[in-house]
């Protein structure tokens, strides 16, 4: 039977020499993961039946079998998380597959120096994610009330004849919306700049629509940080202070972590 090699993550060999790999279930849930020592780098892998996991079969499932994707995505993530709790790990993308151990070995060998650099960059550090949400309705009221340009415009409109008021009010709504966006961005950027002082690196991600998040608040900010383990607590305290200060005004802060260094170990 032909088999494929599923690669979860890469670990410095010296770390795994002093601490063995814990028992972890494989992709199918019936076997176990094992390690492949490739010089100074050790790959954490499992075997998959090649007949069941062709490129087309996997694509088909990702696109059409959401329950499968959900289960396997959790499996991949939880496995990498387990590894990251014990070792310095370069986390691989979901379904990174090789046709043979030889082929994986070649790939790792030809990237060894870059991987070693990546290990150095992430060792002893953690990735944390921050999402900021806003209650737009509440914020809009504040912007609309505290913005002199808007106040002025409103007064002007109230003195216009009725027919003209309708279109001017539409324009005013647009002005309020754009002022709101500006305000939200300005505040979030300030927070990000301040939080980055507690981190080694910060990276801004795109925000998701409320259709994707399923929340009534709008996602205003989405960012990730690479933080020294010893600095994580102060970083999170800062987030908590923002939350306490701004919650009443319609701002929500959601930090999550520690994540395997998904955003900070790429070596492309």
């Amino acid at each position, binding site marked *: 039977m032909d088999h494929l090699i599923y690669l979860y993550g890469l670990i410095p060999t010296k770390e795994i020499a002093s601490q063995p790999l814990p028992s972890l279930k494989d992709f199918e849930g019936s076997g176990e993961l094992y390690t492949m020592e490739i010089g100074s780098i050790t790959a954490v892998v499992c075997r998959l039946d090649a007949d069941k996991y062709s490129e087309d079969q*996997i694509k088909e499932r990702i696109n059409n079998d959401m329950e499968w994707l959900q289960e396997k*995505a959790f499996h991949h993530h939880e496995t990498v998380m387990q590894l990251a709790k014990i070792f310095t790990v370069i986390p*691989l993308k*979901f379904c990174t597959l*090789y*046709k043979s151990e030889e082929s994986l070995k070649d790939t790792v060998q030809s990237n060894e120096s870059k991987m070693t650099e990546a290990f150095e960059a992430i060792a002893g550090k953690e990735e944390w994610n921050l999402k900021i949400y806003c209650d737009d309705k509440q914020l809009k009221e504040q912007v609309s009330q505290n913005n002199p340009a808007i106040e002025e415009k409103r007064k002007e409109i109230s003195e216009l004849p009725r027919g003209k008021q309708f279109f001017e009010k539409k324009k005013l709504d647009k002005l309020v919306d754009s002022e709101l966006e500006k305000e939200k961005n300005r505040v979030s950027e300030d927070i990000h700049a301040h939080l980055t002082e507690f981190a080694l690196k910060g990276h801004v991600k795109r925000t998701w629509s409320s259709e994707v998040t399923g929340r009534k608040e709008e996602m205003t900010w989405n960012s990730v940080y690479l933080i020294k383990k010893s600095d994580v*607590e102060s970083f999170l305290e800062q987030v908590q202070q923002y939350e306490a200060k701004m919650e009443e005004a319609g701002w929500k802060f959601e930090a999550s972590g520690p994540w395997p260094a998904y*955003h900070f170990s790429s070596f492309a």
Partner: protein
Amino acid sequence: MSSVRETIENKEVGLIDILDVILDKGVALKADLVISIAGVDLVYLDLRLLIASVESLVQAQQGNHKEVSSEQFDKEREGLIHATGQPSKW
């Protein structure tokens, strides 16, 4: 008293957060099988529908009698694609 860190660490992470990193940001090392995903957003949206359909299924089982057929599921999916202006890719 537990630290801020412990409180956050023990919170459950959403599937969407996981997909966002493992489909999009996991390290892409040259592999023999390349599984590219057309649009992570589309996957998210589909998943939301799955979650929504599971929720209504639970409601139905709790005596709400709201049946969720696969036709209805497909219809809802189409509706969402239409609403978000996303082309149908599946």
